């Protein structure tokens, strides 16, 4: 009897865990569907094209052109990647190919801290350091006046935030390259950089692209830190010293008030849906590539 009971427990618990597992997948689908339904009113009678590429943002008149927000998001994500990519690439190369273990002992905790700091802290740092620096020094070299709350400030803060993610992904990729390849190249008389460049970096290009896509999707959704330094002006930015208004900031800023206007709520939900879809696609694609690489290296 007892033995039957044990097997029963095993099966029963298995069933329960299976349900939990399925629920998590369902959550993802539910999120998409839920956002879609909530966004439906704003999609009715409007072309997707108009929504995304019109710059008319007049919620009270029922005009919802997302272009300023889309452009804002693209600007800051672009700046963040341009800043973070070379730094993380060089740092990761150094850590895997050149550094002695002692150095790693100090670098990893530092990266840990960067990864662990909450975004609101980055926001505070941005307003205290980056924004004044831009408005008082950097911007004066290029434009007449900037408040400092700008695309560039957001980009820098965002860039620092995605650094640890990029570095850890790159390190994982580089470490997966077999040592034989490196030795073969070094044995032919190549210098260490030539080996790194020709062998390690070239071999990991698909993985690197996947990692960058992943970092982009992370940067896309970052809210609070960006909200604190972006300026929050619904305009299409012309230079990196202009204020921007990325999509997550739009949602966070207006969510409380939108309840009175159903269409406004739908518009904000549409914004969330854009974020969700972009993140979903980017993540799916890059994770699938990374899985394949992982499988190969095993």
């Amino acid at each position, binding site marked *: 009897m007892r033995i039957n009971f044990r097997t029963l427990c095993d099966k029963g618990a298995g069933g329960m865990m299976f349900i939990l*597992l399925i629920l998590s*997948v369902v959550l993802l689908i539910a999120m998409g569907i839920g956002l879609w339904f909530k966004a439906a009113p704003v999609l009715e009678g409007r072309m997707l094209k108009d929504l995304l590429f019109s710059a008319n943002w007049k919620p009270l008149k029922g005009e919802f052109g997302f272009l300023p927000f889309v452009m804002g998001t693209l600007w800051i994500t672009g700046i963040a990647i341009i800043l973070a990519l070379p730094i993380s690439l060089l740092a990761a190369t150094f850590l895997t190919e050149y550094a002695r273990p002692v150095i790693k002992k100090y670098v990893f905790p530092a990266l840990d801290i960067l990864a662990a700091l909450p*975004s609101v802290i980055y926001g505070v740092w941005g307003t205290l350091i980056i924004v004044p620096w831009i408005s008082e020094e950097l911007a004066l070299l290029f434009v007449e006046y900037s408040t400092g709350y700008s695309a560039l400030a957001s980009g820098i803060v965002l860039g620092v935030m995605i650094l640890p993610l990029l570095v850890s992904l790159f390190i994982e990729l580089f470490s997966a390259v077999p040592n034989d390849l490196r030795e073969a190249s070094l044995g032919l008389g190549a210098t260490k950089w030539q080996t790194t460049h020709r062998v390690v970096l070239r071999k990991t290009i698909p993985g690197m692209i996947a990692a960058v896509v992943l970092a982009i999707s992370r940067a896309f959704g970052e809210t609070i830190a960006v909200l604190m330094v972006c300026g929050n002006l619904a305009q299409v930015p012309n230079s990196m010293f202009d204020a921007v208004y990325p999509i997550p900031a739009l949602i966070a800023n207006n969510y409380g008030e939108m309840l009175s206007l159903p269409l406004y709520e739908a518009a904000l939900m549409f914004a969330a849906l854009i974020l969700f879809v972009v993140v979903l696609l980017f993540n*799916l694609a890059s994770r699938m590539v990374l899985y394949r690489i992982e499988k190969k290296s095993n």
Partner: protein
Amino acid sequence: MKFFIEKLMRVLMILSLLLVFGFVFSIVFTIFSKGWSAMSWDMITKLPGGGFYIGKEGGFLNAIVGSLYIVGASTLLGLLISIPVVFYLNIYLKKKSKLAYVTRLAYDVLFGVPSIVYGAFAFTIMVYLGVKASLLGGIIVVTLLIIPIFVRSMDEVAKEFPREILDATYSLGATRLETIRVVVRQIAPGIATATLLSIGRAIGDAAAVIFTAGYTDSIPTSLSQPVATLPLAVFFQLSSPIAEVQDRAYAAALVLTVIVLILSLLGRYFTNRFSKNKLK
């Protein structure tokens, strides 16, 4: 020529590494120097007083306690949900199972979904169900937010679970469920690290709780009351034009940073410490 490039790249690499250190130092130093001067005992032991938002007496105990409530409850819930999921993924399912692949992919995507989207989604659900912004809402959304972190980082460790231990356990007559004690012991360091990681994320996240938990000056006494959180305290107080209130934001930021730094250090420590029973 190639030696020149070699030298150049080496210099660039070291520079970029220094830059990373520079960022860490700059952030931590800024928060500490600004926050320390604004810090006082009252800040962390008192609730906001009457004139708090125009720079008078009081502290942000409400936010500290609120954050602890949310983080404590959601970490517990998260563990309860994610340990079975990881266990099922690694013990019940076969290595090459399609379901395991899809689930891992789903969790990776869920991990990448921005917290503002979680917040927006949870808020619409709450509106639908007629739940107001409250402690309960905050706990649920943060739990959803950290489950992917839990699952992913524990799964990372559980994947390496040695087949031999499993075989040894089975050959004593254990069912799959009964191996859980062995599995949990073996991946204990992973669970500890995952927990710390999740706590760090849960305590620092503002975007998800901004609509779901609300904000209040008092400590909630039931699940249906709104609750303040540290990141939101920083955010709201910093947007005030009054310098004294801004100072409080820095003090709150300092508290948040210290908590996160301690968690991060503990994480390192646990990874080494908890591996006592673990087989190499």
